[in-house]
C-alpha cells in the first residue's frame, strides 16, 4: 500500500502505524454516562464495508497523525488529511 502523506508525499505503508477508526471522539469524562461512553469508545468498533476514515501515524516520517479515508473493500485511498484539518 502507498499512502500520500500531506507533508511527506506518497510513502510506503510500512512507514506508518495504524490505529483505527478516526470517527471516534473521546467522550466527556464529566458526563453522567461517562463509564458507558468510554466503554464504547475503547472497545466497540464498526466494521464497515466501504469508505472508512482511519487514523494512521507517520512514524517513520513527519510524526503526523493522519485521517486516511480508505475503502475497506478495495484499499483505494480516497483522501488523506492531517488530523487537525478535520
Amino acid at each position: 500500500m502507498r499512502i500520500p502523506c500531506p507533508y511527506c508525499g506518497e510513502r510506503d505503508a510500512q512507514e506508518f502505524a495504524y490505529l483505527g477508526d478516526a470517527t471516534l471522539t473521546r467522550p466527556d469524562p464529566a458526563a453522567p454516562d461517562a463509564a458507558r461512553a468510554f466503554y464504547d469508545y475503547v472497545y466497540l468498533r464498526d466494521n464497515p464495508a466501504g469508505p472508512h476514515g482511519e487514523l494512521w501515524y507517520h512514524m517513520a516520517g513527519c510524526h503526523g497523525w493522519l485521517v486516511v479515508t480508505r475503502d475497506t473493500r478495495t484499499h483505494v485511498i480516497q483522501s488523506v488529511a492531517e488530523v487537525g484539518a478535520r
Partner: protein
Amino acid sequence: MTGRGQPGRLASGGLVDRSQTLGFRFDGNAMTGHPGDTLASALIANGVVLAGRSFKYHRPRGILTAGSEEPNALVELRTGPRREPNTKATTIELFDGLEARSQNRWPSLGFDVMSVASLLSPVFAAGFYYKTFMWPAGFWERVYEPLIRRAAGLGRASGQPDPDSYETAFAFCDVLVIGAGPTGLMAALTAARAGARVILCDEDFVFGGRLLAEQFTLDGISGADWAVSITAELAQNPGVTLMRRTTVFGAYDHGAFGALERVGDHLPVPAPHTPRQRLWRIVAKRTILAAGAIERHIVFGGNDRPGIMMASAVRACINRFAAAPARRLGVFANNDDGWKTVADCLRAGIAVEAVVDPRPVISETLRTLAAQAGARLFTGATVLDAFGTANGLQAVDIRTSSARIETVSVDGLALSGGWNPSIALTCHLGGRPVWRDDLAAFVAGGTPAGMAIAGAATGAFDLRSCLADGARSGAEAAEAAGFTARAVETPTATEETLGLMPLWSVPGARTKAFVDFQNDVTVKDIEIAEREGFRSVEHLKRYTTLGMATDQGKTANLNGLAIMAALTGRAIPETGTTTFRPPYTPVAIGAFAGHHRGKQFRPTRLTPSHDWAAEQGAPFVETGQWLRAQWFPKPGEADWLASVNREVRAVRSAVGVCDVSTLGKIDIQGVDAGALLDRVYINSFSTLPVGKVRYGAMLREDGIVMDDGTAARLADDHYVMSTTTVNAAKVMQHLEFCHQVLWPELDVQMVSVTEQWAQFSVAGPRARDTLRKLIDPATDISDAALPYMGVTGIVACGGISGRLFRISFSGELAYELAVPARYGDGVIRALVAAGAEYGIVPYGTEALGVMRIEKGHPAGNEINGTATASDLGLGRLMSRKKDFIGRIMAERPGLTDPGRPGLAGFMPVDQAVRLRAGAHFIGLGAPAAARNDEGYMTSVAFSPSLGHWIGLGLIRNGPARHGQRVRAYDPVRGGDIEVEICSPVFVDPEGARLRV
C-alpha cells in the same frame, strides 16, 4: 549430433556459446554444457532423460517444460550450507562447477525402493489422508506420519545457516513492463521512446521470450537477433532499467509490485559484496502485463513418462539450446502451433515418427509438412497410453479415427493442448478470470488499477498480434503516465494460425493418467472426488491436492477443471475458475528478510559510554534496540553475581556510576505543556514548581498502566519527560496522538531528544562529593540548594553545559548528570577519575535491577500490560481533581477489586534458598492446581544488602497480606518453596538515604 560427451547436442544452431565449456555434476556424474544452457537443457544435451522421482508414487519423471511452470524436474542444487531443495532444472542457469542431485529416490534415481508406493496406489488415492489414517487415532503420530514423511516430501533443506546475504530495495517508474517477449519488448520500446521511465523485468536470463525458442523472422532477421537489437536500444536509454533474472511475483495495492531479482543464483557463489537475491518493491504509475502464456498438456495413460515434453519445450530445446530431447519423436497436438515442432525437427534432423492430431481435418500445409518429415499422420486420433522404463519412452498406443489401436515406437513425445494466458498477476488483488469459449481458456476478468494486459497474456497468441499489441499498450501506458508517444513501426513477422480443438483428457487410458504431475494427482483421483461429492473446484482442490504443489498447478489446473466439468456434465466456467495468489513462483523467506537477520534483525544503538564500557570488559545486554553494559567484571571474580554484588555494595556504601542515556527523553514546550502532562499522567504536573522533578505514571485509555518515569520542569513552559527504555517510541506516539488527535487546541510542541543527551546516574553516599569535582563551583549542588527531586542547569568539566537532576532509582543519594551526547565518552571518564578517591565503581543493568528490586520500584516485569496503577501500589498518585487518560476505565469494578493481584515483596522462609521469577503463588497446603493460583513472582534478585534472595510479585490482595506465607511453585524448574509476603521496599523504607 556431436559434442564432447554431449550426445544430445545438435551440431549447429542455438543460442549457447559453444566456445566455452562448463563442467557440472548431476547425481555425481560429470557432464558438460555451455554458457546459455539451463541445467535442464544441459541434461538433455547429455542424454539424461530421467530427472527425478515424483512426490507420492516415486514415479520416474523427466523434464516437461522449458520454464518456471515446470512441475517435474525439481533438483537439489549446490552442496553444504548452500544446498537448496526443489529448484527447477528448467530455470537454473548453468555455471561451471554446478552440482545438482535428483530428489525423492533411494538408493538411486534409476532404482528406487519407494516406487513400490505405486503398487500401493489405492492407499494413496484422493483423500487418503482423511480416510486411511483415521484409525486408531494414536497411530497418527507414531506410525502414519513418520511413514508418510519418509516416503513423501520433496528435497532436503541444508539444515545449516545460509552463508549468503539478501537485500530489499525500492524502485519507481512510469511504466513497468512484466515480461520481455515480443510483446514486452515492443511495449518497453514504445514507452521508452516516449520518454517514460521504464522498468522491464523478465524471469529469464535472456530477453526475448518465445522469440528465442521459435523459428520466427522479424523484419528479415531471426527473432532472437531482433530481440538483441531491441534490447540494445533499450540499454542505451538512460530512462530504462532492464532487469533480467527478475520475477515479478506479486501485485499489491496502489501500483506496488513485488519482484525477486536473482543476482547471484547463476554464479557458483555470489560476487563479493553482492547479495544472492534482491527483493524489489517496484512502484509503477502504469503496468503492462506481457507475461505470455503457458502451454497446457493433454491427459492420457502414462503421460508422465520421461521423454514426454510440452511441444513448446521441445522447440526451445532445439532452437534455443541446440539440444535434442529425442531421436525418434512423436507429436501429439490439437492445434497448429504444436505442429511447428514437426518443422523444427525436420530442420534439425530429428526424426518425427508420427503426428497425432485429434482434429479430423487439418490444412494441406500441415499434411505436406508431415509428409516432408516422413511422419505417419493420424488425424482424428489420440494418444491413449505411453509405455517406457525409467530411462525413457519406448512406444505410444494411438487410437486412430477408426478406433483401432496402433503402437508406434518413439523415444520422445511432444505434447500440445493449447495455451493458457499467464494472468496470475491480474488475480492477486481479487480479480476473477473469465472463460472465453473461442480460446478455450480463461482470460483476465479485469485488472488492478493502472495495469493493462498485452499480447499472449490476453489470448492473442500469434506473433503479429503480440507485436502490435505491445506497441499499442506501450504507447497508451506512456500517455497515461503523462508522456506523448509517437507511433512505433511494428516489425513484419511470420503469420501464424492456431485452429485449436479443445482436448483435455483422452478417455479409456489403461494406465495411470496424470493431471497434476507435481502432486501426483490422476484422473482417477478426480473421479473419486466427483463420486464422493467433492465437486466444487475448492473441494476438488483440497480433496485431491490438485494445484496445491509449489508450481500452483500452472500446467494442471485447467485440465483438472475440465475433467471435473465433463464428469458432472457442466461447462468449464460453471464448474469453477482457477485463481492465483502471490507469489507467482516461490520466493525464499531469506529474500523477504533481506538484511534483517541475526544481529541485523533490528538496528543496534550504542550508548555514549559504550566504547569506554567495552574497554572495561563489560558484557552487554540488549534492552530494546540498545546495548547496555550488564556488569563490569573485576579480575578474580568467580561469576557475574560476584561482580553485581560488589557493584551494589559500592553504590550503597560509596558511589557508583551507570549510563542511563537509553531512557526515553521527550522535550515538551509551550504554554499548555503542563496541561498536556496533567491529562497524560495520572498525577498532576502543572503544579510542579520550576526546578523540580516528579515521578509519574501514565495509563492506557483502558485503565492499565502504560509506562512510568519522571518529568522535570525546566521553565514555566518547558518540561523534559523521561520514559522507560523500551517504551520510548510508544510514549512519543501516544503524546503525539493526545496532542494532535485529542486536544489539538493545546499550545504545545514536543520532540524526542533521547539521542541528544548522554545521561549518567551517579549514586551513593559520595555522589555529591564526586560531582562537586566536575561541576562549575558557581552552581551550588548542596542538599539545601538542590534537594531531592530538584533539577538545575550546570556547567561541567570546565565548559560543558548540561543538567543535573537529583533523582534516584537506587534509593541512595543520587543524581543524573545530562550532557550533550558527544561529551558522553569524555564525561564518563571524568566521572570515574573524579570518584576514584571515593572508591567509585561503574555499575551495569544487573546492579541497577537489584537495587530497584531492593527499593520495590515496578519495572517492565510488573508493568506487564494487565496491571493497574493500584495493583502496582501507585493508586495514591491518581489525582481526583482532574481527568486523565484511563481514569474512567480504571474505575471499572473489575479493575478496582481489592482481591486483584497487587504488588508485594517476597522472602524465602529458608534464607539459603534461591527465588525464581515466574513461580506461581499457591496457598500453603492447597493442591498445586490452576484454580488455587494466587499470582506470580515477577522479579527476583540476590540482595547483597540483606544477604539473601528477595522478590517482587503480584499476589491476590498482596498489600494486605504482609507476614503471611505461601508456596512459590515453579514446576518447570522443579521449584516448590515457602515464601513470606512482605513490603516490596526492602531497603531504607523511610527514604532517609535519599535526602542527605
